[in-house]
């Protein structure tokens, strides 16, 4: 047993929840390793100290009253929207004949045009700012979803995160940085490939171009490397000459990648 094996199992060891054979192994190791004994003692002490740190008790009665009020508001809101969406149309449909509806619409149109000419243009009403707020909230939620998807364990979820980033109108710097991080470190080739595509939208940004160039030598997959060469070519055009030249001459790179870099050099006129 190595000292480094002990760490993740320390709590189970202290709690006595490890299987007997594993417990015996750890005990044998501790008997001969002073450093690990010290580590166990320090962890036990910290664990106990943490347990002694109190949190205040919540004001349950006040919180319950607020919650009941919120719940009642929610129920009332639901009931109101049901009344508006169901009761009103049925009520109107019984009394109003089509010719009445048509005449009414025509009259409203005439009134609307008349009012439009009379009333001067006014600043944006409150409704507009509410819609803007809602849009902002929605955008924030989408960004949050994207970022959380990119951090998932499952490759298909991360792929979904990369795809979702393409649907964001104005992705935050955090999302772009998460995409670059995915390109650099994601273990799945498909996810990395998708992230190169997603980053194309931001290829006008210097930091993104630099990030992709720097990430290229770390890539092991020629497929991803070729996609990155295409990205660099598309993003920098003739300015990509230096990078492409280096790639074309780098004997450590896959031959297909070097060939793509050479082709790129021809495309930019070298």
């Amino acid at each position, binding site marked *: 047993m190595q000292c480094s094996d002990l*760490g*993740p*199992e*320390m*709590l189970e060891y202290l709690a006595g929840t490890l299987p007997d054979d594993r417990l015996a192994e750890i005990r044998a190791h501790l008997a001969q390793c002073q450093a690990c004994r010290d580590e166990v003692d*320090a*962890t036990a002490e*910290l*664990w106990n*100290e*943490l*347990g*002694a*740190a109190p*949190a*205040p*008790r*919540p*004001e*349950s009665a*006040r*919180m*319950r009253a*607020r*919650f*009941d009020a*919120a*719940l009642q508001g*929610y129920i009332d809101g639901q009931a109101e929207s049901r009344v508006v969406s169901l009761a009103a149309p049925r009520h109107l449909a019984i009394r109003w004949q089509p010719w009445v509806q048509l005449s009414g619409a025509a009259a409203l149109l005439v009134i609307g045009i008349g009012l439009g000419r009379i009333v001067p243009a006014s600043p944006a009403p409150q409704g507009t700012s509410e819609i803007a707020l809602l849009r902002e909230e929605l955008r*924030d939620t989408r960004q*949050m979803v994207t970022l959380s998807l990119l951090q*998932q*364990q*499952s490759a298909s*979820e991360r792929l979904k995160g990369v795809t979702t980033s393409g649907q964001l109108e104005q992705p935050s710097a955090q999302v772009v940085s998460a995409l670059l991080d995915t390109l650099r470190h994601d273990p799945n080739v498909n996810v990395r490939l998708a992230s190169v595509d997603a980053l194309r939208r931001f290829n006008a940004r210097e930091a993104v171009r630099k990030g992709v160039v720097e990430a290229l030598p770390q890539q092991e997959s020629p497929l991803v490397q070729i996609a990155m060469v295409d990205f660099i070519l598309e993003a920098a055009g003739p300015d990509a000459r230096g990078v492409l030249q280096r790639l074309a001459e780098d004997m450590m790179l896959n031959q297909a990648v070097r060939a793509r870099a050479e082709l790129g050099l021809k495309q930019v006129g070298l």
Partner: protein
Amino acid sequence: MGVLFERHHRPLFDFLYRMTGDRGAAEDLVQDVFVRMLRYRSTYRDEGKFETWMFRIARNVRTDHFRKHGAAVYVPEEDMDWATDAPGPAHLLERARDMARLKRALQALREDRRELIVMVRYQGMTHEQVGAVLGVDAGTVKVRFHRALKELRDAFTRVPEGD
């Protein structure tokens, strides 16, 4: 819903208080969690554990809070008063100061590390339960938790004793 509130508002408050270090904010966030549970109840699947779903919502609520207000290191004044003015023998005073230092160290940890410690130590969640909330396996939780504890120890030694 009232039954759910009675059953879960305390652990939720404890989680959110230890994550924000702010009693008022924690109470507000608990409300927010229950309102979201109400609004998004259709996303709960019977096969999943309720607490897992609830803590996922609580994490989202907390993330929104930090995004709006920043995840500043914050120690409630009441704790500091308790640390400096506690009556009694010297060793009790010293212990109170240690507790305050430990709280500061916990608040100084990275959010994801602090969250692990709070879930395991204070919510009594198993590695598997924490893994279900975070969407990772239990082995990963073990390793991350061990790292978080080490960082807490380091952070504790860095907090000045006089504080």
